[in-house]
C-alpha cells in the first residue's frame, strides 16, 4: 500500500491506537471483528500492523541519531536509574541518573569505566578513586554518594550531580580515573606521599582544575605519565606538585 493521505491517517488513527493497546495474540480476533463491520478499515489496520512487524525487523529508527554507546538509558545501577549520558572520555562515561526508589528527588552522576578496560586493575583504580573522592569535600567537587559493581560487572561511582557548576567529565575527574601509569600528583595524592587530599583540593580550587596537573591528554592518561608504583615515580610526582604549588 502506498503512503497514507492525511485523511486516511486521521481515519485509521483511532483504530491503530486501539489495536496497539491490545496484546499481540488478541489482535487477530479484534481485526476479524472490525472486518465484519468495515472490511476496508480492517485491511488498512492490518497492513499497518504488517509494516510494524517489518520495521521492527529492520530496526527502523531503533537507535537515536545521537546514540549514546551501549544502550544504558533507563537501566538501573544500584539504587539509580540512568537518564542520559552527560559525558564520555577515553576512560569511560558519565551518566545523569536519579534514584529509582524515589527516596530523594536529587539527581546524581554515575560514572562508568570503559567496559573494554574493565579488569582487576580497573576495579582497583576505581576503588582508589572512590576513596579519594570520599575524602574530598568542597562545593566545587562532587561528593561521592555510592560506588559498586553493576549487574554486568562494570564498576561505577555515584557522584552528586552538580548541574551548571563544575563539569563532572572535566579534566579533574578525568584525571582521577586514569590507568596504572598515572601521575601521583593527580591520582593518588593522598596516598603515602605526604600530600594530603587538602593539598589537592586547594590546588584544584586555585586553578579551577585548569592546571595541567589536573588535565588529561585523552581522558585516559594525565600529562605527566608518571609510574607511581616506583619510589622514583612517586618522588617525581610529589616534587612536581610542590614546585608547581
Amino acid at each position, binding site marked *: 500500500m502506498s503512503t*497514507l493521505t492525511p485523511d486516511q491517517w486521521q481515519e485509521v*488513527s483511532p483504530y*491503530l491506537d486501539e489495536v496497539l493497546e491490545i496484546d499481540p495474540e488478541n489482535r487477530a480476533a479484534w481485526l476479524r471483528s472490525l472486518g465484519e463491520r468495515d472490511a476496508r478499515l480492517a485491511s488498512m489496520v492490518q497492513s499497518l500492523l504488517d509494516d510494524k512487524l517489518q*520495521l521492527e525487523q529492520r530496526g527502523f529508527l531503533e537507535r*537515536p*541519531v545521537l546514540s549514546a554507546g551501549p544502550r544504558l538509558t533507563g537501566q538501573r545501577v544500584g539504587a539509580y536509574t540512568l537518564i542520559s549520558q552527560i559525558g564520555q572520555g577515553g576512560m569511560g562515561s558519565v551518566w545523569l541518573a536519579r534514584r529509582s526508589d524515589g527516596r530523594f528527588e536529587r539527581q546524581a552522576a554515575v560514572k562508568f569505566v570503559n567496559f573494554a578496560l574493565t579488569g582487576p586493575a580497573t576495579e582497583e583504580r576505581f576503588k582508589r578513586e572512590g576513596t579519594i573522592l570520599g575524602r574530598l569535600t568542597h562545593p566545587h567537587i562532587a561528593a561521592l554518594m555510592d560506588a559498586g559493581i553493576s549487574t554486568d560487572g562494570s564498576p561505577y561511582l555515584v557522584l552528586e550531580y552538580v548541574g551548571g557548576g563544575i563539569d563532572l567529565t572535566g579534566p579533574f575527574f578525568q584525571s582521577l580515573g586514569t590507568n596504572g601509569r598515572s601521575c601521583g600528583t593527580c591520582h593518588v595524592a593522598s596516598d603515602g606521599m605526604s600530600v594530603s587530599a587538602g593539598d589537592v583540593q586547594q590546588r584544584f580550587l586555585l586553578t579551577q582544575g585548569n592546571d595541567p596537573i589536573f588535565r588529561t591528554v585523552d581522558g585516559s592518561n594525565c600529562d605527566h605519565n608518571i609510574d607511581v608504583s616506583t619510589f622514583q615515580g612517586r618522588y617525581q610526582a610529589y616534587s612536581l606538585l610542590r614546585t608547581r604549588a
Partner: protein
Amino acid sequence: MQATNPEISTLIGLAEQGDEASADKLFTVLYRALHRLAKRQLARQGVVTVSATTLIHEAYLDMAAQEGRSFPDRGRFMAYAARVMRGLIIDHVRNRLAIKRGGQFELTSLSTNVADVIDDDQELTRISQALDELAHTDNSLSQIVDLKFFCGFSFGEIAEMVGVSERTVHRKWEKARIYLYRSLRADLPL
C-alpha cells in the same frame, strides 16, 4: 539573549496562536541559542562531545532564568526546542560529512559510534520532511520522534516532559514509526 531578539516566551505564545512568522523567528532564535550553548559548553569543558539532551536541558534552564516567571513550562518549551534540535543535528551531520572535523563541534557519539547511527544526511532530511508532514496531522507524534530519535530522550523522560503516561508515549512512538516507515519505505536502504 540579545536585546534585539523578542523574548522566547512571547514568540512561543504567538507561535501557539498560529502566527507563522513568529514560529519561524522562534526557530531561528532557538537554533542560534542551542548552537551558541553547544560551543560554550565545549569551550568550557575542553571536550569534543556535547549531548543533545544536556544541551536542551541547559537551554531551558538558561532561558527560563533570563526571562523569568513568564517563561513557558518545560513541556511547552521542549515541543519547540526538540524540533530545532532536529535541524541542528541534521546540519551537524551534513557539515561533518562535508568537512571532516573542520572546526565544528561534535555532538555526543557521532564521533564514537558512527557505524551504528544513520550517517546519511539525505536519509535524515527525508525523515525530517516526513515528520513535518506528520506534524500537520498529528503534532504530538512528530514531537515524540524529535525527542526520542533525534535528541535521544527515553520514554520516561518524554512522558515527564510532555505530561502524559509512559505507555501513551510508547504507543505514540509506535504509531509515528509506522507512519514514517510507510512514507519512507520506498527510499530506505535494504
